[in-house]
Every structure is written in structure tokens, then in C-alpha cells.
């Protein structure tokens, strides 16, 4: 109860940035998905923190966080399926080598 809201927000910001770095800088496609997971978690922290430090009677924060869980799960499943499918075609999972959409 003595933890200021700012700590949570800074933490989630930091986690988000790290996840962002992972998405932008990693070669492997699976690693990119890991970065995305980090970013989603940061968002979740933010949501729940605002629920707790706002009006606890309105449960929008928690519900939203639950929805995010569901979305994250779905996204990981589909993402991995896509990666496997792409690997079957191009025999690579390096993001840089998937450049068919160039000019």
C-alpha cells in the first residue's frame, strides 16, 4: 500500500522497452515472438496497476487483462504455426531472409 503508482508504471515502461528491443533486434522469428510476449506482459502490469490504484469497484482493468491473456495465447499459437509453415517453404526462420516483399 505504500508503493507509489509510479514504480509500477516505470517498471512496465522498462519491460515494454526491453520487449521492443527484442522485437526489433533479434534475428530468429521465434525470438521476436518472445519479445512480443514481454510487451504484452508489460501492458498487463499497467492495466492491473491502474485498476488497483484507481477505482477498485470497476473491474475493467482486470477484465481487460484477462482478455489480453486470451489474445496473447491465440497469437502465440498462430504465430508459431506460421513460423513452422514458413520454414517448410523457405527452410529458414531468420526474419531478415524473409524478404519477398521487397520492391
Amino acid at each position, binding site marked *: 500500500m505504500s508503493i507509489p503508482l509510479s514504480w509500477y508504471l516505470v517498471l512496465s515502461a522498462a519491460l515494454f522497452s526491453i520487449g521492443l528491443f527484442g522485437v526489433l533486434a533479434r534475428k530468429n522469428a521465434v525470438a521476436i515472438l518472445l519479445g512480443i510476449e514481454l510487451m504484452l506482459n508489460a501492458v498487463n502490469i499497467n492495466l492491473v496497476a491502474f485498476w488497483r490504484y484507481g477505482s477498485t469497484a470497476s473491474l475493467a482493468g482486470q477484465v481487460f487483462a484477462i482478455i489480453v491473456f486470451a489474445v496473447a495465447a491465440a497469437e502465440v499459437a498462430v504465430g508459431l504455426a506460421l513460423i513452422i509453415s514458413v520454414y517448410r517453404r523457405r527452410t529458414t526462420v531468420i526474419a531478415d531472409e524473409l524478404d519477398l*516483399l*521487397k520492391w
Partner: protein
Amino acid sequence: MATESIIWLLPLPPLLAFFVIILFTNKGKALSHSIAVGAAALSWLGSMVVFVRTLAVENFGKEVFQSSINWLPTGDKWLKIGVLIDPLSAITIFFVAWTVLMIFIYSIGYHNYGQPNGDHDRKGLPPHGATLIDEHGHQQTVPSIEPMYARFFAFIGLFAFGMYTLVVSDNLLTMFVGWEIMGLCSYLLIGFWFGKPSARNAAVKAFMTTRIGDVFMLLGISFIYSATGSLSFRDILNEHTLSVLASTTTPILGLSAAGLMGLLLFIGTVGKSAQWPLHVWLPDAMEGPTPVSAMIHAATMVSAGVYAVIRMFPLITAGFDGHNLTTTMSVIAFIGAFTALFAATIAVAQNDIKRVLAYSTISQLGFMIAALGVGAYVAAVFHLVTHAFFKALLFLGSGSVIHGMEHGVLHTGDHSVDPQDMFNMGGLRKKMPITFWTFLIGGFALSGFPILTAGFWSKDEILADAFGNGHMVVFITLAVAAFLTAFYTMRQITLTFLGEPRTKPAEHAQETHWTMTLPLVILAVFAIGFGWVGIPEKFPVLGGLIPNWFHEFVGGTLAERPEVLVFNMVPLMTSLVVALGGLLVGWLVYRNVKSAVEDKLQINVLKNKYYFDEIYDFLFVKPSYWFAETFAYKFIDQTIIDGFINRIGGVAQSLGTGFRKYFDAPVVNGFGDMVGESAKKIGKKLSPIIQRGRIQYYMVASLTVAIIVAILYYFILT
């Protein structure tokens, strides 16, 4: 029906006839002439009703039939137009109605109604005859019907409208309108046979010459309007206005305002009534068909000129004390007397039957004008009326003669004979009796044959007035002119009707159709009888038997009835001597003359009308042509104005071309092309760099830009 309403309606039937014929019945010959004659008859009937009613009015002259309407709003007043029948216009409408109707009926026969269409007739040329082949195979050429038959009736209908309008109007404006309509119709009718160059030229000449007069008349009308604020006769011609105008002087020639106005209006009459120096158009106007000559030169148009002067007589004589002529009156008297003598001298040397009558008209109008110039009001009106009757009679008679001659020409096939040349005629009294007797009556009336003819009474009254008021020069000039008149008239009758036929066509001439001879007879009745309504009281023996109705009636038009002249034997004797003497001399000289060679009076100066046409051509016509053609057209219009405009166009064009070549194409287009090309090049260069297909690359790039924008937004804009 109220008399004023009838008066308003008098000009209408001929106008409607004009429109109906032009618009609808142009192809139908019988229908057209029926409409035209019916319209003339309607107007005649209306005129007679009005005239009879005026006779019933006590003190007509003070009481008049008058009706006017507000027409043009001018500030806080109205310009009124309307109709007026006072004694002068009553007597005028009388003779106008009769002569117009006679001419309309005459035209039916003149243009050969009922004859077949000609072989080679074309619109615009006089008809040349049709060949008929009868059962035995005999070929005969007969006169053919005029191709533009209906058009003629439409035009004379319009002409009649113009004259009626002029006579019934009560103000200068509608009078001028009627005046101009008649000017237009004279142009149309003189140039009726427009295929002949001589006719076209004559029409233009007539229009131009009368136009000169009309300009001055319009100036006079404007002057009157600006001085008095009204154009209505009643307003201008009353005592008060006239005394004001007579006492105002103008800077021109020291004339009073009234004198100047009168002079300007008189110049209009000089043009319209063919007085010297604007007389040149009238002889050439003989190019038109003969009914036109009768209409224009006897019954209506030239009479309109004299009518205008008579109408404005109070204005012209403002300041006249009874003996000393004002400047304007002197000018008028001079021109009238001079023209009378001048034209009479030319007439004795003419060979064309119509030309003689043309110059005779000019001369007789001179008589009337001179009479007005010396203040003989009633005499001038009297001569106007009688002249209309006998001159119309003479013209229609000459047309009948020409028809008879043409019949002879077609019959014999000898087309070298001019049917209008008197020296080709002769002996026609046997072949065309009605024409002969009526022409004789008309000719005697013109000469002033005593007692029996109307011309005597009117001409005698003019001479008596001139003598009685002491204007000797005028008197002597007119007396000489009267002698010459009788002389050339008898010359004309002798050469045409008396003696033996001089050519084959003359032998085969025959009398004309009743539609032509009936009007001759009716007009002859007037030519004889009309004089008897104006016998002076003091005339020996006959005077006093019949009251001088004419003097009483017409004299009532003026504010003060003119006094009856003291009778003097001198003018009476003079007119007897000149008339009978002229007739006798003419008969004696010409009964033995067989051809033009023997005619001693074929003096070149007279034949060529004192070379006035040539003088005018040199002085006025040729310079005008030069000015118009060379100076105005070729020099100013084509060289200067057109050259200037073309130059501007050329400059604009070269500017445009240069602009296009040096600026638009390289700079503007080049710029556009360059932008496109460089965009392409940049795109080509950047594509391998930017569009790699690598997602992470895209993400980094977009994130970078987003952060930069956010920094800009937060730090710089807020």
C-alpha cells in the same frame, strides 16, 4: 359613329391592306387587288362621311373635329398626338380620298390584270408580252400581267396610309411620320422595276434628294419643340405663341424665330415638292409605273409638301402685316416663282410624254409656293386641290396612252419604237377616244382654259392675289410661266392625239380597259366642276350666282378670315390672254411638225435641264463617292484601323508563340518533367535501400519517425 373615331380610323384600312397582302395574299392577284381597292374604298367612304359632316357644322374653323391622346411622358407634361380635321384638312382629305381611290382602280387595268403571264417575264422588269397562238395557228403577242402584281398594291396601300396619316394628324410628329413613310414608299415604288439600273438609280436619287430637305425639316421641328415645348398645331399656331416667336430674333440672317422655323420647314417642302434646287429627282422618278407617278406627283406626295407649308402658314407669316413680305416669305415667293418659270422652260423641250408632265408638276407646285409666299392662302389651297385632280387625270391619261402604244408595239412586233416618245405617236384621238377627251379636259384645266375648267379659277386667283398685293415681279413671272404651260400642254396634245399616226404602233393602238378609263372620266368631272365652288364674288357676270363657298370654307382655317380681294380686270385679262394665247400658239406651231428634227425648240440647254444633274454630280455626288470609297473605306478603314488591329493581333500572336517556345515548353514543362524524372530516379535509388522486405527494418524505421515526431510535437510545438 363619332366623327373623331372615324378620323382615327381613316389611315388604317390601307395599312392593313399592306400587311395582309405582304404576309398572306402575295400570290393571289385578284385577292390582293380586291383587298387594296376595298381598303381604299373604305377610307374613301370614311373621308366622305367626315367631309359631309364638316359641311354641316356652323362656323367650321372655329369648331373643329379634334381628338388627341397623351403619348410620350416628358417630365411633368405629356407630348400629345392626335387627329384634327379643320377646313384645310377636310378639303385635303376630300381630294386625297378621291384621287387615291381612282389610282387604285386604275392600277388594276394598268398592270394588265386578266392577261396571261408573259413569256420571258421576270420579277423586277416590266412585263414584255405573252405570245398567244389561236386556233388558226396565228401568233399574237399581247400584253402580259405584271409579275409583281400583288406587291404593287401592297406598296401603294402603304403609301396611302402615309398620306392619310399626314393629312389627319394634328401635330408635327405624326405629320413627319407620314411624310417619311411616303418618302420610303416613293423609293420602293420608283424602284419598283428593280431589274432596271435606271430605276434603281432614280429611286436612290429621289430618296437622297428628299432626305436633304427632310434633315432641315427635322431641324425646324426640333427648334419648334424646344421653343414652344409642344408639337401640336393648336399649341404652336395660336396668337400668343406666334407673337412671342415672331418677336424673338435668332442670330441667323436676322430672322425672327418664327421666320427661321418657317424657313427650315420650307426647305423640307423644297425637297419633297421638287422645287429648285432640289428638283432633280422628280423627272427621274418617271421610271416608276405610271400610277406611281400619278400618286406621287399629283395626288399625294408633292401635295404633302405644299400642304405642310399651308398648314404652317401662320408660323411662316408671323410678322406679316399684309404688305411687306417677311424675309421667309420673300424666299418662298422667289423660289416658287423661279421654279415655275424654270421648269416650264424645260418642259417645252421634252419628248417623253411623262417628262413633260413631270416638269409641269414642278412648275405648278411653284405656282402654289409662290402664292403662299405672297400670302395668298386660299388661292394656294384652291390650286392645290384642282391641280391634284387634273394632274392625276393627265398622268393616268398618259399611262393609258402608253398602254395603247405598247399594245401597238406588241401587235406589230416593232420593239425599236419607244412607246413613250411623243414623236412616235399621233392621231390617237381616233384610236383612243375616251383617253383623248379626258386628256384634253385635263390639259385645258392645266392651261387655265377659261370658265369651263377648274384650273382657270385657281390660277386666276393666284395671279389676282399677286397683282392685287403689288408683287409685280411674281405676277409677271407667273404670267409668263402660265403662257409656257399652255404652250407645252397644247404641244403635247397636238403631237400625241392630233394629226396622223407617225409610226406603225401608233396606227395599231387601241383604247384601254374600263378599269383605266373609268377613273379618267371621274377625274375629268372634277377637273371641270371643282372650279365652280370657288368663283370670286366680284367676277363679271358669273360672280355672285354661286357663293364663293371655297373661300368661306377654307378661309375659316386661319384665325382671321382672309379678306376678299378687290376685283381687278388686269389679272383676269392676263390669264385669259396667256391661256388662250398659249393654247393657240402651241397648236399652230406643232400641227405641222412631223418629227423631232423639225422641232425648233429642241434646244440642248433645255433638253438637258440646264445641266443641273451634271453640276450636282460634279459638285456633290462624285466627291461623296470619293470620300466614302477612297478616303473613308480604303484609307481610314482598311489601312489605318484594320492595319492597327491586325498589327495588334500579330503582336499578340508572336508574343504567344514566343512565350510558348521560350518559357512554357522548356521552363514549365521542363520543370514538370524534371520533377517527375527526379521522383523516378530517387525512387529507383531509394527502393533497394528502403524497401528491403525486412519487417524489423520497417519497424525500426517507423518507430524512429514516430519518436522524432513525438519529440517535435512535445518539445517544439507545445
